[in-house]
């Protein structure tokens, strides 16, 4: 059963199970991760099989969860923390930024911080306030953290395995609206590098760079564009910190046009960093300025408005048209 067709959520579950099986120092911590299996059932059945000592229901305090995870890491454990929703990570932001990210440098390299913080993120599920946000830039900005996000089941399985094995703290953003999308997972395949981007669809006229939930949207946009005679390449970035600029650069040198797509607000978003660096690297190749499609500089809207706020097929295609018009 090396190759299975699994929903992204189940791939994460299998990955966590594998980690608990192979490393006795792995501990899962979070709210409702035990009997309930987490609000998205990512830890379903794990406490039953591995016990309350390995899959730990914690008090309802995010700073406490991350702070005690740091202490467990100092004791030699490899904690995997679940933050229930993107908008609830902020009570832990202080511990993540001032402690988790800096502990290694503070100790001049004598301390390791193998902590994974899993955060379901992004919108599109019709949720109430604080349940649909994309705060990845707030973490990518912090030296000492690594930030990754899978877009499909295979990456969900393997990138989580690699994040758990990392001796650095990893913020692992899970595209919650893609939890139920199925994809093949080969649990015996040799995984690619954690921090490498992947060309998800080849094309020659323009590059769409995206990650997490927007990869699917961009692939759909590329399919529509193809019907209109435009050949669009889609790069799944996979890792936000570090960012694989080499792969983006190689793509842009071929297509000469770049549009970056993410759900997070465009202002100071990861697209801004990509635009700046790709402009520097590919100045003489670019036929158009790097364009960005993302959320607006407004609080994430009520669910009935989120379709307008989120980059969808039409807004991505609009940016493709604008870029090609130069």
């Amino acid at each position, binding site marked *: 059963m090396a190759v299975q067709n699994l929903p992204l959520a189940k791939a994460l579950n299998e990955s966590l199970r594998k980690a608990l099986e192979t490393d006795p120092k792995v*501990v899962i911590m979070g709210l409702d991760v035990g009997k309930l299996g987490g609000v998205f059932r990512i830890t379903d059945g794990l406490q039953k099989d591995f016990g309350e*000592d390995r899959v730990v229901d*914690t*008090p309802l*305090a995010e*700073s*406490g969860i*991350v*702070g*005690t*995870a*740091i*202490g*467990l*890491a*100092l*004791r*030699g*454990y490899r904690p995997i923390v679940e933050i229930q929703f993107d908008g609830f990570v902020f*009570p832990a932001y*202080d*511990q993540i930024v*001032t*402690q988790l990210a*800096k*502990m*290694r*440098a*503070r*100790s*001049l*390299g*004598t*301390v*390791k*911080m193998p902590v994974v913080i899993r955060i379901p993120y992004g919108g599109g599920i019709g949720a109430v306030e604080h349940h649909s946000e994309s705060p990845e830039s707030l973490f990518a900005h912090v*030296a*000492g953290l*690594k930030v990754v996000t899978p877009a499909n089941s295979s990456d969900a399985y393997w990138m989580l395995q690699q994040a758990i094995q*990392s*001796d*650095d703290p990893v913020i692992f953003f899970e595209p919650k609206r893609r939890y139920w999308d199925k994809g093949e997972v080969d649990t015996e395949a040799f995984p690619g590098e954690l*921090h490498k981007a992947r060309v998800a669809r080849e094309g020659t006229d323009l590059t769409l760079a995206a990650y997490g939930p927007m990869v699917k949207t961009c692939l759909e946009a590329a399919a529509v564009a193809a019907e209109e005679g435009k050949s669009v390449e889609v790069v799944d970035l996979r890792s936000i*910190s*570090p*960012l*694989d*600029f080499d792969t983006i650069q190689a793509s842009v040198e071929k297509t000469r046009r770049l549009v970056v797509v993410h759900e997070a607000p465009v202002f100071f978003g990861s697209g801004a960093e990509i635009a700046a660096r790709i402009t520097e690297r590919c100045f003489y190749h670019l036929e158009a300025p790097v364009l960005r499609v993302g959320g607006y500089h407004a609080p994430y809207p009520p669910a009935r408005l989120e379709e307008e706020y989120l980059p969808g097929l039409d807004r991505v295609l609009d940016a493709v048209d604008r870029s090609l018009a130069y």
Partner: protein
Amino acid sequence: MTVESTAARKTTRRSSGTKRTASASTSTTKKTSTRAGAEATEPELVQLLTPEGERVQHPDYDIDLSAEELRGLYRDMVLTRRFDAEATSLQRQGELGLWASLLGQEAAQIGSGRALRDDDYVFPTYREHGVAWVRGVDPTNLLGMFRGVNHGGWDPSSNNFHLYTIVLGSQTLHATGYAMGIAKDGADSAVLAYFGDGASSQGDVNESFVFSAVYNAPVVFFCQNNQWAISEPIEKQTRVPLYQRAAGFGFPGVRVDGNDVLACLAVTRSALERARRGEGPTLIEAFTYRMAAHTTSDDPTRYRRDAERAEWEAKDPILRLKAYLENEGHADAAFFEALEAESEALGKNVREVVRAMPVPEHMAIFDHTYADGHALVDEERAQFAAYQASFAAGEGE
């Protein structure tokens, strides 16, 4: 005395204390400091050595130390104070950018620190120079961050003494997590977590109380209530004596005379033993006083009275133990003279080591950001190296 009976007795005492409070208007109960006109009664505190150096008994806590052990505690406190004074001087001379003095808190730190076993683990704030001393941390290691050559830089596992933590209260959660790990390992060691009266208001400290209580973690919280959080008096942090907060979290709290090294040792030892037995956390409030400024950048003349400091000078932790040692004949003049010489030698050594402390290489900016590397760090390191090298090339012109 068993812990159960200790706890029971405390409960009794606490409830009788409540009754006294109720009739405070007609009783002789001492009022707390008049700073804020608080109505609370002065809670009892565990004391084994009075400010005059008189040995007194306490029903719940006792300690039996040899003359050598008593001299050892005295030596620890004297050397810690000498180190602290040297560091303050070095700041005044421009050798350190900042110093956070522990003056007045020697008994709290030496007493609690000497209660530890080697396999116990300490999570300090940034002022636990005395605890570092008893853990065997080279005192000059503490000065790197204050000189600006690193952010701590010692290996916490070499002395089971964690790095200084500047963000108030953060370390209490690390301590709790570490203690949870000890419990998972089935080990019988314990964790001692330090924080202050100011940090007691932090969410992290309160969350650490919740987590440690829920998981019954082997951690002892040692709060040095030195009465001041920079310029804010204790009344700005709490309406109840801090040790009483423990009751609300479901574990015992005790107030100890923080200037009494014997009481601090006895109370901490008892709490650590309790933690080792799997009976969970304890909150110790060491009632003490910050004799110096918050740091060398602070100016206490703007916010506190000289008279208050004078009152606490009479309760000095070192003088009271000295009086006891002399009165009991536990130490002779030769001991004090030798210690004086040792103090001066320590100060000289600290001075020399600090002055010789090298500024790190420029490229050290990038070191230790990640364990497994990071492409952006590699790229920026290379750019920075090229930029630096461009000056070297220019020098030849």
